[in-house]
Every structure is written in C-alpha cells, then in structure tokens.
C-alpha cells in the first residue's frame, strides 16, 4: 500500500476499522460500484462524508456510452431496476480522473470481455494511489461482459490468473446470481487466486408499465438492487464465507446499520452501499457507521472484525 495512505488508515485503527485481503479500511462501509463512481471530486466528498472505501464504476478498456434512458428507475419497495449498460469513461480517461487522488481509499472496478483486455488497464492504474481492484464478473444486462463472463468458469479463471500476473495489488471478484451457482463461481475465483469476493451484484429483473403496456427500461431487462435483494445477498455471503473461508464484502440492499451488521454476521468483513444513497443521500455512510459503532459498544466488543461470520456456527 502507498505509504501515505497507510499512515492515514493507521489513524483509524480503532473499534470500526476492518482489514481484509490486505486492505485496511477505517470503517466497514464502502461505496458500491456503479453508484456515483466517475468523479474524483465526488470521491473526495464521499470520503469526507464518512465512506470507508470507494469502488469506482466498472471501467472498460474503451469508453462506453451505455443504453439510452430510461436506464434506472425506482420501485415501491426501496429498490431500483437499472440497465445503465456499463457506461464509463474508459481506462484512459478514468486513470487521468483519479491521477490526483491523495488520500481517498479507491478500489478500481474493472470489466472486460476477455482476459486480454485486463493487462493494459492494470498498467494504467497500477502506479496510481489506489488500494486494489474489484473485477465485475456479474453485471446482468450487457452482452459478452459481466455475468456472461461470470457464468463461464474457465473464463473467470483465465481473467483472474491474467490479472494476478500483472499486479501485486489485491483483487476482489464481484459475483452475482447467474446461471452458475454463486458459491461455485466464488470457489473458481478463490482457486484462481482472488483475494476476496464481493457478493452480490444486481439480479436480472424487469418492469412493464401497464398504461403504455411497454417495458420501462430502454434495454427492457436490467438488474434489481435495493431492499428487495437483501436476503439473497445475506444468503450468498453466508454460504461463500462459511464454505470457502475467503474474505467477503457484502452488498445488496443495505439501508440501515442493522442490515450492515446482519451481513457482517453472515461473514462480510465490509459492506457496500448503493441504492440507499438514492433514498437517503450521502449521509447514509455516517448514519450506518454510527449505528454499527453503537451496536459494537452495546455488545461489549473491541473490534468490528469480531462479529464477522459469527452466524457461521449455526
């Protein structure tokens, strides 16, 4: 880790700080990939607002414009369906965007359709002030990327091996609910050398407007996030963490500190927030972190790490 970053994180070495796969975070809350993830200025603001870590939007080798709107809309149940289409500025522009990063714990999310696309992206980011990489193998709504790669164990293995041979930074694999069981893909990722798993991504979903009788999303099908998917997230984290013993970052409908604690009990060393930001704003990071702190104090614990995976014995 960059010396300067390391110093900053040491300052937070208290009740709330967590470590996983060589990463040290001042608290367990991270920004989930896909949300607000393109601007260094916004990253700085998120860090000031209390985020323990920040995962960028998934970056591809070339810029992607994504689908036409509507790309995201809200459901009644504090959930979203989105098909943004992996819109991102591309590795070159994004590496320039974060080149000036000083103290924000950024994890760059990468996406690609074959193992050959990753080395040149890693080359652009490896010298920058970042903590590591999250590899998106689970976006459910773009052909030949994300889940279509994540559902192919051989490709998952090839990508991870290629990345590992090109960087010493930790790599986290983001998995989701595809046609191959999420635990099986996590196993493949672990065997190929992944340092941690993020579970879960959005789940393929759809909504139709009954007045116009038309699908709402321009892409028709998108990914469901928010409260609706939380129990699936908790189950995935529990099974992956308990069966594989690899560090896991929980993601999926975390809206409150209670949700965060539940994910940690299931085995998550850190949690990612996304949809909650649309409903409660950026203050969600502070609210949830404060809630976790109070919970740990009430339970008489010395470190957030003590609750990670506590539910595994049952």
């Amino acid at each position: 880790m960059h010396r300067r970053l390391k110093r900053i994180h040491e300052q937070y070495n208290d009740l709330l700080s967590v470590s996983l796969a060589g990463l040290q975070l001042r608290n367990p809350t991270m920004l989930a990939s896909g949300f607000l993830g393109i601007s260094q200025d916004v990253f700085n603001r998120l860090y000031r607002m209390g985020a323990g870590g920040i995962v960028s939007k998934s970056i591809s080798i070339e810029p992607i414009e994504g689908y036409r709107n509507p790309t995201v809309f809200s459901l009644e149940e504090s959930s979203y369906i989105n098909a943004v289409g992996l819109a991102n500025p591309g590795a070159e522009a994004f590496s320039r965007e974060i080149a000036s990063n000083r103290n924000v714990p950024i994890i760059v999310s990468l996406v690609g359709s074959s193992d050959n696309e990753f080395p040149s992206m890693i080359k652009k980011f490896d010298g920058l002030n970042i903590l590591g990489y999250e590899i998106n193998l689970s976006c459910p709504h773009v052909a030949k990327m994300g889940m279509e790669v994540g559902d192919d164990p051989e490709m998952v293995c090839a990508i991870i091996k290629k990345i590992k041979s090109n960087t010493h930074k930790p790599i986290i694999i983001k998995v989701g609910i595809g046609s191959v069981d999420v635990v099986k893909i996590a196993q493949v990722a672990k065997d190929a050398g992944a340092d941690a798993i993020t579970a879960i991504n959005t789940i393929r979903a759809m909504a139709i407007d009954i007045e116009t009788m038309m699908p709402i999303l321009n892409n028709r099908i998108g990914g469901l996030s928010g409260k609706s998917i939380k129990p699936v997230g908790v189950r995935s984290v529990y099974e992956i963490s308990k069966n594989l013993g690899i560090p896991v970052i929980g993601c999926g409908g975390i809206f409150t500190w209670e949700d965060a604690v539940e994910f940690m009990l299931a085995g998550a060393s850190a949690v990612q927030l996304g949809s909650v930001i649309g409903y409660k704003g950026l203050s969600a990071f502070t609210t949830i972190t404060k809630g976790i702190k109070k919970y740990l104090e009430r339970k008489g614990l010395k470190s957030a790490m003590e609750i990670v995976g506590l539910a595994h014995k049952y």
Partner: protein
Amino acid sequence: MPTNIDRIRSIVIEQIIEETPTVKTFVFKDEISSKAKPGQFLMVWIPRVEELPMSVMVSDKKGYAAITIRKHGFGSTALFNKRLGDLLGVRGPYGNQFKIDKESKKALLVGGGTGLVPLMRLTITLNQLNIDTTVIIGAKSKEEMFFEKQANDFLDKTKHNVIISTEDGTYGVRGYATDVMSIIVNKDKFDTVYTCGPELMMKKVVDIGLANSLSIQASLERYMKCGVGICASCCIGDQLVCKDGTVFNEKQLSTMIDFGRMYRDKSGRKVNFHM
C-alpha cells in the same frame, strides 16, 4: 395514485401550445407536478425512446402542469412530435428551488430558450411577494422568441418590465440577453439575478452579477440518467445538479471550475462546451 414521487406516473397530453416553429408546450393533469417549485424538474419518459430531465412549466388549470420542449436531439424531437392524447410518464419533481430573499426589492431574471421555463414558475412567486421584477428574454430572432405574454401576465400584480433581445434584431433590442443585462445593471439597483438558459449565457450572467455584487441564483442543466443522486452523470465538481441543484448561488458558482467550461457526456468523459 402513487404518492411516491420516484414512481413513474402516466400522464396524457391534454393540450398542445405551439410557442414557435420549434418549441411546443404540452399541458397534462398531474397533481404532484402542478406543485413543483421553481427550479425543480421532472424526468419525462417518452415510452421506448428516451427519458429526459425537464423543468416544470406552469399551467393555469388547477392540478395541471406542463413541459416546454425544443426540438433538438433524438429524444426531444420524438417528444416534440407527440400528439394530443398520447401517453408519457413522469417522475419527480426533483431538485432544489430558487431561493427568494424576503428582503429582496428588485429582481432581475435573465433567460434564454427553454431555460425560461423555471423562470416563468418563479415569476408567479415574485408576483405573489410583490417584488419589482425585470425579465430579459433572449432569443435568436422574433420567430424563435416565446413567453413574452406569459411573463407579463404572470407579473400582473407587481411592478414589472419584460425586455426582449434578439440576436438578429428582428424584435426588441438587438444583441444578447447579457448585453441588455450589462446595461441595465448599471442603471437600476437590482439585488438578485435569477438565470436559466444556455450555460455559456449563464456564465456571462454570473460574471456580470459577480462584478456588480449581485446575489445570483442559476438553475443548471446537465445530462442525467437517474435524477436522484446515484449516477453522477450530472456532477459539476463534487456537486450533483439533480440533488444539490439545480439551483446554485454565487458562492457555489464561483468555485465551480467546470461551470461554463465542461460537462460530462453519456460515458462520463469530460467534454468542452463549444465556444
């Protein structure tokens, strides 16, 4: 009817007003939109085509609102071509609103194109508060000028002055709205300038306003995907236009390095405004 403003609500185009050959106003019934604050916007769904952020125009009918469309790109042209009785979807209104200082005595509004929409909603409030109001409407030509009558009608109960400027001089004063602004800020003592329109025009308005120590409220426009503060497509610096804006004050505007210079395209890359 759902009360959650985030859910898409079906609306029917009940009236179409042709403002100019390239600008139309669609009137529709929607209680929630009718109560939008000046500066707020709707995400307007054109089924199977696009979804666009649009300021909420005033309708004189209770429980009704409107949108004013300029035929421009793919989505706005599809919207412009919609007919009476066609269905659209709306969600919102989103964003903050113009703040009116209760001490304000004399307001200046500078607008161009469909940027006049939030200013029209604002004139209704200024009229109610009996604040002396000058409106400068900028247009390319007489043919492309609109909302002069509305501005005068909405300000009927307060002292007001509506000035038109056209770039080709076919109507009103020849020149840009900002040329008129430069002249009148030296003659009259305005306390606040409210602006909405093309960003390069607003940049000029802000520069003139700052040079004359005026309070400034500018409603900004950016490409948006979500409208609810999660995609960051609309960010300027660390500010999200959809959630922290659309209205920013002189303090915020003077620290926005990219204001009047750059915006982000659909991929999130920064692009220069054409000068």
